[in-house]
């Protein structure tokens, strides 16, 4: 992984902006904004007089070389009027935004500095106002301000307040909960100082992006109010007024209505794109650019000699020279590079390695679950006699029943791996229903049996519940039950206990052990916990930077006969009862360094 820590944040920001300006959206946004602001500043001085001068000889003419888009009912050039109106439209839109965002930020930050009960009251009021559409607020406020530009601007500004305030509230609430704010509180820093030093800086990015978006909608909304006759009043004019004047003569000269209509839409789009661009540059919204991808790196031509052995049929799984690649930041990265291994029937093999070493991707590739744009290439991925290497998505589908019944997956995070909208029972039963030829009632009976088998009390009732009504350990056991609906020849367990506490972890491991024994299943057990792996598996594969660096029996590994420096370092960094606790805990990196010197 490349580190960006050496680059100062400010420089990185500028770089990020420059990068975004080079994208089509960014370029259009920036050029468009410059044009818009330029028009607003210079157009009235250049053409203002000409655009307001009434000319009785030229009333309502069609397009001509002198007047490219024709003239209006007072003989004034439509194009010039539209260009000049950029100032009023932009100005009033910006004013409304300025009022709305400033007030919104103030109101939004109040709950974090006021006494809690007032804070809650403010939050409640804001939440209620958010549900009301802006026009209703405008209507409400127009009563106070009266019709006209001032009223409309204030009304529009105030209409933005609830949205920005709510955004600010949720943002500040999340920041207030963070450690550095708690630390500042403990140190006795006054609340207002916390607000200005810690809270506001951390929410500005999001506010800036949303303010730009708000400017876009204020601009069109202001034009809308003028269009209805409750915004800008004659003789002043903006795009909204021009449109409403033009609409009456739509049949005679469509340009009179269409020109301001297009102008207001373009301005809205440019500002929206600007917000989008700023957002991307500040990292408020994630950006995925895959357009200029370098070619996929070709696999190394020569596999290691001892791995080149043909897949053995007695093995439940044989993997040869497996590569998994993903596009990232404009080029292909290959987190799994040339992995080869076998798992015999009924054998338990552990895969250990640090996060990012490619363990989970190897498992997903074996299970044919790597999705586009990820790429899997291998000489062989033979599972139970079928070689899946090089098969298309469609070809894999023809083996759906095989994979579904004979290979079972137990995923890492029990909290997120069960579908929150479906009851647990049907989720567990689904495999039998899909591939086992079971009808729905049979499948659900079988699911109840399996839930009981993994030690879930009251399985009938539990099967009717949703995952959110299960504890973490129960969900993980339900996941295992789900894998037992067929007769698994291979159970792929990807860090099945990482998210669980130590006692639940033991129960889950016992369940996994019993299940593997009863069904004679082979297990591919992925973990970063060496003690857990050596206790459960017969053999251990050590992965490091996308490659298998050591293939060793658990007994040998525990006895200390590992060969690869990474494995040695890994073993040495596990603290034991005899570890000298007066020294800082050793890490893998320390041992690797030692090894190199």
């Amino acid at each position, binding site marked *: 992984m490349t580190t960006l820590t050496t680059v100062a944040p400010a420089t990185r920001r500028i770089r990020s902006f420059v990068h975004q300006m080079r994208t089509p959206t960014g370029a259009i946004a920036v050029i468009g904004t410059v044009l818009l602001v330029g028009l607003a500043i210079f157009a009235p001085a250049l053409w203002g007089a000409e655009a307001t001068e009434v000319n009785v000889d030229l009333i309502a003419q069609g397009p001509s070389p002198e007047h490219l888009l024709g003239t209006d009912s007072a003989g004034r050039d439509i194009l010039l009027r539209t260009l000049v109106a950029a100032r009023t439209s932009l100005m009033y839109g910006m004013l409304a935004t300025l009022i709305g965002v400033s007030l919104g930020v103030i109101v939004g930050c109040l709950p974090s500095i006021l006494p809690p009960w007032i804070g809650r009251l403010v939050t409640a009021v804001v939440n209620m106002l958010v549900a009301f559409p802006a026009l209703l607020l405008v209507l409400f406020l127009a009563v106070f301000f009266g019709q006209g530009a001032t009223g409309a601007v204030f009304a529009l500004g105030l209409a933005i307040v609830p949205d920005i305030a709510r955004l600010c509230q949720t943002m500040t609430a999340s920041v207030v909960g963070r450690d550095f704010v708690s630390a500042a509180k403990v140190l006795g820093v006054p609340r207002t100082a916390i607000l200005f030093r810690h809270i506001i800086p951390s929410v500005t990015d999001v506010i800036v992006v949303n303010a730009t978006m708000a400017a876009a909608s204020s601009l069109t909304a202001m034009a809308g109010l003028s269009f209805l006759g409750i915004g800008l009043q004659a003789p002043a004019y903006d795009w909204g007024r021009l449109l409403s004047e033009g609409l009456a003569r739509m049949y005679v000269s469509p340009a009179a209505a269409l020109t301001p209509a297009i102008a207001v839409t373009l301005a809205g789009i440019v500002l929206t794109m600007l917000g989008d661009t700023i957002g991307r540059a500040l990292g408020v919204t994630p950006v995925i650019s895959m357009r200029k991808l370098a070619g996929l790196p070709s696999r190394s031509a020569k596999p290691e000699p001892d791995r080149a052995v043909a897949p053995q049929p007695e093995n439940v799984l044989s993997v040869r020279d497996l590569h998994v690649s993903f596009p990232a930041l404009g080029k292909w990265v290959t987190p799994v590079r040339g992995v080869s291994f076998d798992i015999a029937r009924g054998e338990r093999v552990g895969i250990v390695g640090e996060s990012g070493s490619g363990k989970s991707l190897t498992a997903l590739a074996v299970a044919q679950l790597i999705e586009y744009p990820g790429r899997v290439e291998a000489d062989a991925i033979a599972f139970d006699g079928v070689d899946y290497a090089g098969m298309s998505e469609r070809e894999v589908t023809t083996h759906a029943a095989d994979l579904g019944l004979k290979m079972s997956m137990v995923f890492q995070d029990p909290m997120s791996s069960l*579908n929150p909208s479906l009851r647990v029972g049907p989720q567990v039963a689904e495999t039998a229903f899909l591939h086992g030829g079971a009808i729905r009632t049979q499948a659900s009976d079988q699911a109840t049996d399996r839930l009981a088998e993994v030690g879930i009390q009251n399985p009938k009732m539990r099967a009717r519940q949703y995952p959110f009504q299960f504890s973490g350990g129960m969900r993980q056991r339900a996941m295992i039950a789900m894998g037992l609906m067929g007769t698994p020849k291979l159970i792929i367990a990807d860090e099945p206990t990482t998210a669980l506490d130590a006692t639940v972890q033991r129960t889950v491991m016992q369940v996994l052990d019993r299940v593997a024994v009863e069904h004679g299943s082979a297990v591919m057990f992925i973990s970063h916990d060496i003690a857990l792996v050596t206790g459960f598996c017969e053999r251990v594969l050590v992965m490091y930077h996308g490659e298998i660096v050591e293939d060793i029996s658990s007994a040998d590994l525990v006895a200390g006969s590992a060969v690869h420096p990474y494995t040695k370092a890994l073993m040495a960094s596990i603290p034991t009862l005899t570890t000298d606790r007066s020294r800082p805990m050793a890490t893998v990196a320390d041992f690797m360094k030692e090894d190199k010197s």
Partner: protein
Amino acid sequence: MKNMISSAPPDSPDAVAVSEGPLQVDVVAPPAKKAASTNPWVSYLTRRLIRLVISVVVLVTAAYLMVRLLPGDPARLSLGPEATDEQIAVRRSELGLDTSVFTQYFHFWENLFHGDLGKSYSTRLPVFDVITQRMPATLEISVLSIIVILLVGIPLGMAMGEATRGGRNRWLDAMFSSVTGLLTVAPVFVVAAISIYMFAITSPVFPVAGRSGPSSYVLPVLALSLSSTCALARIVRAETFNVLEADYVRTGRAKRMQKSRLFFRHVLPNLVTPTLTFAGLLFGGLIAGSVFVETVFAWPGMGPVVVGSITNRDYPLVQGIVMVYGVLILLINLVVDLLIAAVDPRSRITKL
């Protein structure tokens, strides 16, 4: 639907009142013990309806204060500048302005329950009659638009989400993003103006003004629904991306089912809540949109009344409109929340 969470027997309507009593010990469902004596639906509905009532009270009070806090004498305003002092005094007692503020506020509520929203300053007609006479036309195009928005926006967003996830079909992605992006930003009155140009002037297919026969609905509904449809499609697509990336969809894929089953059974239910939430917000926005649409197409709905009430400073009318539209939005929110509760079991239990 009923009793899916608790295993307690179906509740009688007065179950809420009983729930304060001693809890039944329920050995069958320990996690649901707290809710055991009450059907979750009943308690959810109760809480939700209490919230609705509070919101209505706040809304009505705000609408009352809106006119009360205005500078000037409502009696003088309602009679115009030429009124004599005597006329105004009579009017003041007619309007109850010579009593205390609390009496007046109470009186205001009393009138509301009788369907009396006061009289319009400009036309002298009862506000209630004006609104009931104009509202149906507005509701017609609004409801039709809601149907169009949901029926087009949701399937379009999902199909695009499935087709363009993870960088698939990049040209389709670019086309969808730019077209819907443009149409989402385009304000309703611009869409209305351009649709007149395209479908009424360039090729006269649809009538452009008034309400007469089915074909006259086409352009108003198109103009009112287009932006919202695109906005909804965009949101649904983004949500589809999120769900497709979720761990539980990977679990679903590991079961090797058909793509259609994966989508409709595992993905779709998880899209309902965010989609409905956003759609609820869009429906509120339709009220604003309808004002523009009705102005452009001379539609005989609330639009002209809304605009007229502001230009004429017709306070009773504005007050009435704010209350009626406010209640309408609160009801829409209620319906959306109930729909979400019906589909998403979590919202009944965890959220208010």
